């Protein structure tokens, strides 16, 4: 079983922090709604700091106790009540999201201020409220131990994410937002149908209890298939990625960073949670291979289409389509390791690192593209001359983020791909290693093109359209540096992600 059930489910020290991690962002959102205008931004920035402190405290509680942090809401134990649980996987994601949200918040301070002379403006107010809502929902996705509470978390994430797409307010962005809404709701409904089937068959929605009760039988297969497809649509895995690039085309840079870096990681994390912890004995190796095959197709198609883009923002968006593919290579690798009676930590940690290094790198790259747009007044890749002179820090950040996407050492992307490739070789699934290599080559091609174009000297007498504040550039550089140095995690003395998780029975092994 994924977790030891020998000890009864009880609230652990530090458990209350999990409730705070979920509810503090929402309290900030509610308070921000009442205060309105400039007060909203002040509240949001204060909550960013408080939330980061809460995430660090949770990590401390986890490492100290060496076991998952648990809180029983209302004192009611599952199956009647709802438990919040944070194992290593959840805590690492909590921390990463807190850092990325902090970086995006620092960047967005300049873009989403209420203009002088107005008490309140639409886009700034909504951006800060939605940012807090996205954060609270993601934290709930990471720590919830109950499939229905997780459905509520997905709904929160949808309704917080969709308006971010159309903050600009033009008709095209409304069209993309509506398309995203339809994909996301379709995904939610499929997930909910699966959860209902599981409750009908096993009488509980609690993840730990379900893990002990599910058997490989038609109802479990039907539930697993419905929920997985629903989550793939929300994660924008090829071929369900069609909503993602248009959603980014017209969204503000900070909103794109939230969507591409964070929101899609919520549904991906839930898919990982289901496959590793709930359906470990139900899903089969061929189904895991299918997920990875879709991931491989995403890597190839996404990267090739990215190479053909004329606009920087769309190039980064298609690069996200490709990077999502890597996130799904971990499934057959984890299955293969477990089937060979080996520790699946290499594959799981590889997937987790890929998620975090992509979140930090992609948030930085979208925000860098936003600064380029402000400075040049456009983001045509063919005409990036002068960027190096006007925005040196931003260009370095873009290159560092790109290096992490390619997988150059010592970046987080390098360590992630190293772990995944070594797992692929250990389990004799060399074809996935090949896909990762080709993907890295294609990625390096478009990162190289952008950097070379940006290094070209500006024409005589050229001046930037607008100047950007230094702290915006610093925020972008900090996130990109974080992604670039994430590979140092290999020197971390404890395998934090593995805390609270015992050896998982392999996918396909009953």
């Amino acid at each position: 079983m994924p977790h030891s059930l020998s000890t009864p489910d009880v609230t652990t020290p530090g458990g209350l922090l999990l409730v705070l991690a979920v509810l503090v962002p929402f309290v900030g959102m509610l308070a921000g709604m009442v205060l309105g205008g400039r007060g909203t931004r002040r509240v949001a920035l204060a909550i960013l700091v408080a939330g980061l402190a809460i995430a660090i405290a949770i990590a401390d509680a986890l490492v100290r106790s060496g076991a998952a942090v648990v809180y029983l809401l209302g004192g009611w134990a599952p199956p009647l009540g709802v438990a919040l649980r944070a194992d290593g996987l959840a805590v690492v994601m909590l921390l990463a999201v807190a850092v990325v949200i902090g970086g995006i918040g620092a960047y967005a301070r300049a873009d989403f201020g209420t203009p002088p002379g107005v008490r309140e403006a639409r886009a700034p107010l909504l951006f800060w409220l939605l940012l807090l809502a996205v954060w609270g929902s993601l934290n709930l996705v990471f720590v919830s131990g109950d499939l229905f509470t997780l459905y509520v978390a997905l709904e929160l994430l949808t309704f917080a994410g969709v308006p971010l797409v159309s903050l600009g307010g033009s008709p095209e962005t409304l069209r993309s937002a509506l398309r995203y809404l339809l994909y996301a709701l379709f995904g939610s409904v499929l997930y909910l149908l699966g959860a209902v089937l599981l409750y009908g068959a096993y009488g509980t929605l609690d993840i730990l209890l379900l893990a002990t009760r599910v058997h490989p039988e038609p109802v479990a297969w039907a539930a697993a298939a419905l929920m997985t497809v629903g989550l793939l649509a929300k994660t924008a895995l090829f071929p369900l990625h069609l909503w993602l690039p248009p959603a980014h085309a017209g969204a503000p840079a900070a909103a794109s960073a939230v969507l591409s870096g964070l929101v899609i990681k919520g549904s991906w994390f839930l898919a990982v949670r289901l496959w590793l912890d709930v359906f470990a004995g139900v899903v089969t190796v061929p189904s895991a291979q299918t997920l990875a095959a879709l991931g491989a197709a995403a890597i190839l198609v996404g990267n090739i289409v990215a190479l053909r883009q004329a606009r920087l923002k769309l190039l980064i968006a298609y690069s996200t389509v490709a990077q999502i593919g890597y996130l799904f290579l971990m499934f057959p690798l984890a299955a293969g390791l477990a089937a060979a009676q080996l520790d699946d930590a290499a594959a799981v940690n590889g997937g987790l690192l890929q998620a975090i290094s992509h979140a930090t790198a992609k948030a930085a790259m979208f925000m860098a593209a936003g600064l380029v747009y402000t400075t040049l007044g456009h983001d045509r890749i063919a005409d990036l001359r002068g960027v190096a002179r006007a925005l040196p820090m931003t260009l370095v950040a873009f290159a560092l983020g790109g290096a992490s996407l390619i997988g150059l050492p010592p970046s987080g992307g390098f360590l992630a791909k190293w772990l995944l490739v070594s797992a692929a070789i250990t389990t004799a699934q060399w074809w996935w290693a090949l896909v990762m290599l080709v993907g890295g080559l294609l990625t390096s091609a478009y990162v190289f093109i952008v950097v070379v174009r940006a290094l070209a000297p500006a024409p005589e007498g050229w001046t930037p359209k607008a100047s950007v504040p230094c702290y915006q550039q610093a925020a972008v550089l900090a996130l990109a540096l974080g992604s670039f140095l994430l590979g140092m995690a290999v020197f971390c003395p404890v395998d934090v992600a593995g805390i609270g998780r015992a050896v998982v029975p392999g996918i396909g092994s009953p």
Partner: protein
Amino acid sequence: MTLALAVDISLALLVLAVAGWIIAVRDTFGAVIGFVAYGLLLALVWIRLAAPDVALTEAAIGGGLTGALLIGAAARLRGTEAAARAEYPGALTRMLAAILAVTVTAALAIGVLALPDPAPTLAPAATASLAMTGVGNPVTAVLLAFRAMDTLLEAIVVLLALLGVWSLAPDRAWGGCPGPRRLVDPDGVLAYLARLLPPIGIIVGLYIFWIGADLPGGKFQGATILAAMWLLVIWAGLADTPPISRTWLRILLVIGPLVFIAIGFAGAITAGAVLAYPEGYAKPLIVAIEIALMPTLVLTLALLVAGAPQRMPLQ
């Protein structure tokens, strides 16, 4: 064949027929009317399945509120209906949609047919712990005690949906009144209804809300009726929608979740866990939460139907 079975079979056939009609009919307005009928029929199905709480919610939210939202959307789409019909999805898209729908139905059918009989259920456990919550309706106990977190977060989901609707406002109308200005016809049928119905509707809505603690009913169903009464008065032109920048409006919109969270955290001190209630005070605290949620839900549901702010109030 018993009478009950005959009723059930004809109800099932009717639901299927209306569902087919909604898909087949090309006129948006016709499909919306079909959808409202479908919601009401489903409410009857829930009554036949002995789930009156679900039936009330389905009738209020599924039939009533969603119906009102869709009718509003259909009315706005009327002008572009002919143009949209030219973009009617091709045979391939429709075929793919059909394959998808059939696959999902098949997966569900496999799952449902394979369910154990009798199905495992938490209903006895919920009933056994009912006494500790002080309420008589097990559904209310699930919503406000055992799974209070879900209810709290769902209230925030509805609020986020409202923010999503507001986000569609033009920048110059931000802070203004939702929906178009209604013309007053003091002798019209609508104005007559708007004077006649609200007193009765308010009493019915409050009754359904209050009875929810012990019998089928509750805040969501009651709030829908109260919201409908308010909207009736607005549509008749007897009152206007409030500008969304008003502080009192913002406070009422968030008061439900905020009181819920405050009582929840107080539970950590007085009862040993967040969202737990101290012994003997469970029922009053649950009722307090429900009362605080009422204005939030009434306003959110009504403003969702009213739409995005689009004009500044007359000075």
